[in-house]
């Protein structure tokens, strides 16, 4: 008797219809996916991307080599060689080396900087083909990574 | 520990005073360069220890009797220090019968560079009582190579914690089956969380300098 009841119960497709209704409903909804890499999403202003050096209005380095970023970095990826030059009261970075393959993008360097001399920019396509490409010297650090355009 | 206690003005000192004590520190640092060349001795602020006041704490100390070596309240947490002797397991059984049925954590500590610890190693058992909604900590100090009975018969959860303490700190637990390494490979030499574990015989010291050297060779 119990087996018969259970057998009849199997023809109660209420749960299946309920589930199918949900998926059917979603056919008429707007798609949420983006056709990457043809379309790209823009990250928020606070996004922590690649480390970049900043210049002031005169085109001078804002960095005064206080070494705060070097000291706070948990993975020790920043190296600065300070120097002096004429017409500038503070020190300036002769070399500013940044090793991106060990960077954990925590943003502590930017937080520790009292001169707003560095920032984490909004780049997120940071994969490279060679380990050497992850090494950024001072010249490379100002320039944004060239973007590759994909077309149909 | 007792030396620090003496330096500490009064055990009744509460948290607010502790914050006040912390405040003048930066000033002392600024004043130091003016005095010139005498490096100021770093002033160590110690979190105050108080006498246990609540009824359940006194009751528990009374029930445990002689096995309690020291009992105090620090940063709002109730601590009991016990000794590693033949009553060790009995003490924990009494603690469980008292109501502390949930063993949250067993932590192992190496006090090698810590001032005021009576012995080299330490184990901290953190308990919670689901019925009473209370927390407490039981501490035991151990010498190097000293074995300690396992509490796995009382709390099954001690299994992983004890294996971890053995693996990373080298504390040996007796009276339980299969004390194997848990996080590190089975053929690993040494116990990395020890304060003198930087150098292991037969292994090159793994430092930032070595890493840089290896990378340059790449």
């Amino acid at each position, binding site marked *: 008797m119990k087996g018969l009841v259970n057998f009849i119960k199997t023809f109660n497709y209420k749960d*299946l219809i309920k589930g199918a209704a949900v998926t059917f409903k979603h056919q008429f909804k707007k798609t949420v996916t983006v056709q990457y890499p043809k379309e790209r999403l823009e990250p928020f202003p606070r996004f922590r991307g690649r480390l970049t050096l900043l210049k002031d209005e005169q085109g001078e380095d804002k960095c005064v080599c206080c070494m705060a970023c070097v000291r706070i970095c948990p993975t020790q990826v920043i190296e600065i060689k300070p120097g002096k030059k004429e017409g500038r009261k503070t020190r300036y970075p002769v070399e500013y080396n940044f090793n991106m393959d060990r960077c954990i993008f925590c943003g502590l360097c930017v937080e520790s900087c009292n001169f707003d001399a560095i920032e984490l920019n909004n780049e997120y396509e940071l994969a490279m083909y060679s380990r050497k490409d992850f090494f950024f010297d001072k010249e490379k650090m100002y320039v944004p990574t060239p973007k590759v355009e994909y077309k149909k | 520990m007792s030396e620090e206690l003496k330096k500490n003005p009064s055990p009744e000192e509460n948290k*607010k005073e502790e914050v006040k004590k*912390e405040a003048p520190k930066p000033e002392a640092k600024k004043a130091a360069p003016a005095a010139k060349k005498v490096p100021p001795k770093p002033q160590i602020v110690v979190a105050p220890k108080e006498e246990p006041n609540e009824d359940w704490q006194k009751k528990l100390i009374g029930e445990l009797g002689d096995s309690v070596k020291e009992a105090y309240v620090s940063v709002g947490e109730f601590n009991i220090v016990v000794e590693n002797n033949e009553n060790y397991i009995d003490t924990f059984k009494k603690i469980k019968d008292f109501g502390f049925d949930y063993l949250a954590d067993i932590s192992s500590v190496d006090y090698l560079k810590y001032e005021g610890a009576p012995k080299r190693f330490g184990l901290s058992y953190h308990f919670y009582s689901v019925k009473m909604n209370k927390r407490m900590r039981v501490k035991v100090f151990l010498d190097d190579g000293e074995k300690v009975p396992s509490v796995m018969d009382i709390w099954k959860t001690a299994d992983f*914690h004890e294996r971890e303490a053995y693996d990373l700190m080298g504390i040996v637990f007796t009276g339980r089956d299969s004390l194997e390494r848990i996080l590190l490979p089975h053929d690993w030499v040494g116990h990395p969380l020890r304060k003198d574990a930087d150098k292991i015989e037969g292994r090159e010291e793994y430092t930032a300098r070595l890493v840089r050297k290896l990378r340059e060779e790449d």
Partner: protein
Amino acid sequence: MFKREIVELNMGPQHPSTHGVLRLKLKLDGETIVDLEPEIGYLHRGVEKLAENFNYLQALTLTDRLDYIAAVSNNLGYIETLEKLGGVEVPKKAQYFRVLLTELNRIASHLLWLATHALDIGAMTVFLYAFREREMILDMFEMYTGGRLLTTTFRYGGLKEDIPEGFDKKVKEFIKIFPSRMEDYEDLLTENRIWKKRTINVGVISAEDAINLGLSGPILRGSGVPYDIRKVEPYEAYGEFDWEVAVEEGCDTYARYKVRLKEMRESLKIVEQALEGMPEGDFRAKVPKTLKLPKGEVYHSIEAPKGELGYYLISDGKGTGPYRLKVRGPSFVNLQGLKPMCKGHMVADVVAIIGTLDVVLGEIDR
């Protein structure tokens, strides 16, 4: 002719259903599990040793990488441990915002659990839907902290930065949308006969055993023990909100599924209240720039999405970093429940039970 033979089978470390690099040594009698031994440590990075060489702020970045799907909760537990030892009063605004973010994180973590758990058992649609909603929460994290997964959110004494403009709008939008999405998940799963057959009476553990094994979080609450640290020892501003602890009596995988679904609803309630009642004022207390803590030790635990997350911190009063930092990861302890839960079940049920334990290997291996 039919000789009984015990077969040893390795499941993992590369297996889609083990959620990371978990390896299980199964002993099988036919299809039935006789014994099981988890083998862990493939993701061991030595977080506790690293923390001893870092200062307090640098060690915060390590806590992100413990339970990487609930980084905000990990940050909160660590920062609160420091604050408990340092004795700092956190401003009300920071407390409210901390609660808001951690509850959003709890929803995100449970959504990921729901997605992968359902996918393991065979319901793929929920996977896609849950990830869609999780994306909204990750967007909020990105808007506030700059990181989506590894957030490094809070700072000693309060918040890192002020709340950005437009953040409340995003949260309100989420609060509006989410209840209807929850109904979608329930329509797909709760009454579904396959889901019920795969989860009811699978992985049963009694309340007594669960306490003895040290299980916590939704697993303990699924066995009928109302142990939620947010309720029994309210930290931050949790005491000021109106919400309930999700408890189910079923002790099985289905009960834990219901607990987590209810928890998401309760979390949304807290988020709503925290957003409405957000006070004005400072977001960070006045603290010295280099943090130095008094000599002493402290254990502090919070209710992370996976269970009781505890930090045991010892400071020697001299250095600017921890002398010893021990992490009591909920997943590490919860994994011990796998053996008693799996015994006597089929191999396919192991997949469901790993899913219901909701383990994250970053936290287990540390």
